[in-house]
């Protein structure tokens, strides 16, 4: 086996955090290596150093025996390293061909060789089974297709080593399977691949070798056939983490009801006539592939977006649009994107803790902020919700994702909401933080709140929800009880095949009537 890539003793420090601590890693020709680790373990940092986005404090990168100059993505590309980012680096308004060609031709060339490029792209697509229309605008492509374009872009640059950063984060189960089949095929044709993941099942099914990172260090390296999910889980987390278990629910009266709610959402993720009821003391899980209207649904229920038609009622009374109205009606809101929506990084902790309820007499009087009360409330949240590393007067930007989420949970739950809208509440958090979030959601449910859990993490929804619906193209599927959910059924629901779910819903309704 020829060694195509070797990282030796890579160390990288950001301020006080040691993101990579003497990490060594190698890759042989035709091999697929999985880089496994929790969020914050240093996987992305390591790959960014390899690709020249960051410069390592110490250590070296060698590609096919040649040392790679640090900090130069161009040198990495020239050496045959291609990177497929988690957040695609594509220009949505250009065609596939334009995107693939961008940066491959010298600037002073007057004419670009489009026909040559088209032929080459077609050949690559054919060879690796990555079918995509070269003249389609990237904006019109599905997420899976965009990923194919990203991969083609790397291959077009003669990549022999391909790095994929969490490639399945945005794919459906079926799309992910197709991707891994493609990757296998590419490895068989002599390419070498590294993919970053924190999902055990895909690491087990798709890799030849696993390198486990924890806290910036390589803690283990295993041939995939010699290891197991259980061993990898323990290596990755470093300890056994038990997610809390949901006690059986005793649903009360209907708290929140949506009837035929329709609204145009951003990026085509519109809601087309949604109806559901959320009862006191129950968790309703909404699953689905990213981009099917989850964001819009969360925005409507959070009061950020007004429905164009249909009604939302809280305890039978219509809910007026508006954030303040939603909060006043007892809706607590955990936003999907902590950094972009949940907090203002450059404002202080106490301001972030009270901003969404600043109109309340608790926090302002005649337009003047009651700073003492606001600070005290923030201090209480920091203490009761164990927000680490935060000062009441410090900026929120400095908090880790998990602590940011604790702050958001704290400010929401302090108001003791009857209804909790949690959109992707554990996205990007590590196992310990996820367990904490789940505990809080279960507590809220136990004291009688209704929880609307919108999540793309199936394990999370199965663990927390009493009933599960799928959102597909802006419509909601029938609800099935969580006890009857299995991967196959949920997959069908997410794909828009609701026949089985309809049957189950009808059965359940029949059973309820019989009681």
């Amino acid at each position, binding site marked *: 086996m020829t060694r195509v890539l070797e990282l030796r003793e890579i160390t990288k420090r*950001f*301020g*006080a955090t040691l993101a990579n601590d003497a990490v060594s890693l190698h890759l042989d020709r035709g091999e697929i290596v999985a880089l496994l680790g929790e969020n914050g373990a240093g996987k992305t940092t390591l790959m960014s150093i390899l690709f020249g986005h960051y*410069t390592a404090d110490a250590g070296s990168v060698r590609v096919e025996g040649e040392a790679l100059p640090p*900090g130069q993505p161009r040198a990495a590309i020239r050496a045959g390293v291609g990177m497929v980012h988690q957040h695609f680096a594509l220009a949505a308004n250009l065609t596939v061909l334009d995107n693939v060609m961008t940066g491959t031709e010298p600037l002073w060339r007057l004419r670009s060789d489009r026909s040559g490029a088209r032929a080459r792209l077609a050949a690559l697509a054919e060879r690796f089974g990555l079918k995509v229309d070269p003249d389609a605008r990237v904006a019109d492509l599905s997420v899976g297709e965009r990923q194919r374009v990203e991969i083609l872009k790397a291959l077009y640059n003669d990549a022999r080593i391909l790095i994929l950063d969490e490639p399945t984060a945005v794919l459906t189960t079926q799309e992910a399977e197709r991707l891994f089949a493609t990757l296998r095929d590419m490895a068989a044709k002599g390419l070498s691949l590294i993919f970053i993941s924190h999902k055990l099942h895909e690491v087990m099914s798709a890799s030849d070798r696993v390198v486990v990172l924890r806290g910036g260090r390589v803690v283990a390296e295993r041939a995939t056939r010699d290891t197991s999910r259980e061993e990898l889980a323990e290596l990755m987390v470093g300890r056994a983490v038990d997610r809390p278990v949901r006690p059986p629910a005793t649903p009360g009266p209907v708290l929140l009801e949506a009837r035929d709610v329709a609204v145009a959402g951003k990026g085509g993720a519109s809601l087309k006539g949604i109806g559901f009821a959320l009862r006191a003391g129950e968790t309703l899980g909404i699953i689905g592939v990213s981009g099917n209207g989850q964001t819009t649904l969360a925005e409507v229920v*959070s*009061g*950020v977006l007004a429905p164009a038609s249909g009604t939302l009622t809280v305890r039978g009374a219509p809910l007026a649009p*508006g*954030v*303040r109205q939603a*909060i006043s009606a007892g809706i607590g*809101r955990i*936003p999907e994107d902590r950094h*972009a*929506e*949940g*907090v*203002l*990084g*450059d*404002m202080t902790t106490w*301001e972030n803790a009270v*901003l*969404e309820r*600043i*109109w309340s007499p608790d926090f*302002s009087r005649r*337009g*003047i*902020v009651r*700073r003492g009360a606001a600070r005290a409330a923030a201090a209480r949240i920091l203490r009761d919700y164990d927000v680490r590393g935060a000062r009441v007067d410090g900026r929120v930007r*400095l908090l880790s994702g998990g602590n940011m989420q604790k702050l958001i949970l704290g400010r929401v739950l302090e108001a003791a909401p009857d209804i909790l809208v949690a959109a992707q509440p554990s996205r990007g958090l590590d196992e310990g933080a996820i367990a904490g979030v789940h505990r809080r959601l279960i507590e809220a449910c136990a004291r009688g709140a209704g929880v609307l859990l919108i999540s793309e993490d199936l394990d999370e929804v199965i663990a927390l929800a009493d009933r599960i619906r799928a959102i597909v193209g802006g419509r909601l599927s029938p609800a099935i009880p969580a006890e009857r959910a299995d991967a196959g059924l949920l997959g069908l629901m997410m794909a828009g095949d609701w026949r089985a779910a309809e049957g189950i819903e009808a059965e359940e309704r029949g059973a309820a009537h019989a009681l």
Partner: protein
Amino acid sequence: MRFERRERPSAALTLLAPLGAIASALAMAGALIALAGANVAEAFGLILQGAFGSRLGITETLTRATPLILTGLAAAVAFRARLWNIGGEGQFYMGALAVAAFGLVPGLAGAPAPVAVLVCLVAGALAGMALLLVPVVLKLRFGSDEVVTTLLLNFVAILFVSMMIEGALRDPLAFGWPQSVPVPDAALLPQLVERSRLHAGLLIALAMAVAVWWVQERTVFGMRTRAAGLNARAAAFAGVPLGRTLVLVGCLSGGLAGLAGAIEVMGVKGYVTTDLSPNYGYSGIVIAMLAALHPIGVIGAALFSAVIFVGADSMSRALGVPSYIADVTVALSLLTMLVALFLVQYRVRR
């Protein structure tokens, strides 16, 4: 060379960076003075002497700083909320014109002085507001870029002033010069220092700086303004009424610029011409940036800029270095300040 965001900029760095920026701007200006053939030390000495060395120098510097504080505040409050008001110059002139029009309103000209002053100040502020509300409403309704609309409205406003002072508001006793009727004596601001041009407008400007700081720090409106400017999406999620906040910010910003124009007429000139402002409106933008948008910092930045302008005037008379050196120095200090503020946030890595 690459830049990495600092986790926590140190306090010392935050304080030293602006000083370093001013120092390097002065050093570059010094190089230009040397190129012009003058002795650099002597030139800087003369600048300081011109600005501080005499009673006249000090009062002139403060007189000059007065409108700059107000236009600086106007830009700072708007920029805080990411409302890019480049129209301070036009709003300044509209405020000035509103005061001139006051003389023509029957019944008001004979009003007692405090009433007349107050009415004129309010009229000036309202005129500035009105001019900025047009672009703000266009931005909210149609998403038009306020940088373009406010900038272009400057020319519209100045041409409008020109039309008025050659027409309806023309002073018949001005021997054909295009200037407005004089402001009635009752509406003039009292002098602060005998035999100088320094007037009570300085106190108004200082009070406004403190008031703006208080509003930004202590009120719900101020908190929402900052939130809207830092991250509109998160602000909207937290229930900040973005449109209403922007309109209020526009009122505040336009009002401050209009007030600057009103005060300049009521305190210094006594009538309106089209050369009333040596770019006070545009200088306000520079001053706001120099102050890193902090209302109290605006006072310091306006004083700095006034010192340079007044001092350079007298230095250029003595040494023959063109007084444009003042514009160059202020412009350089803006550039170095932007670099310094960037370096406070980021460190350079090789």
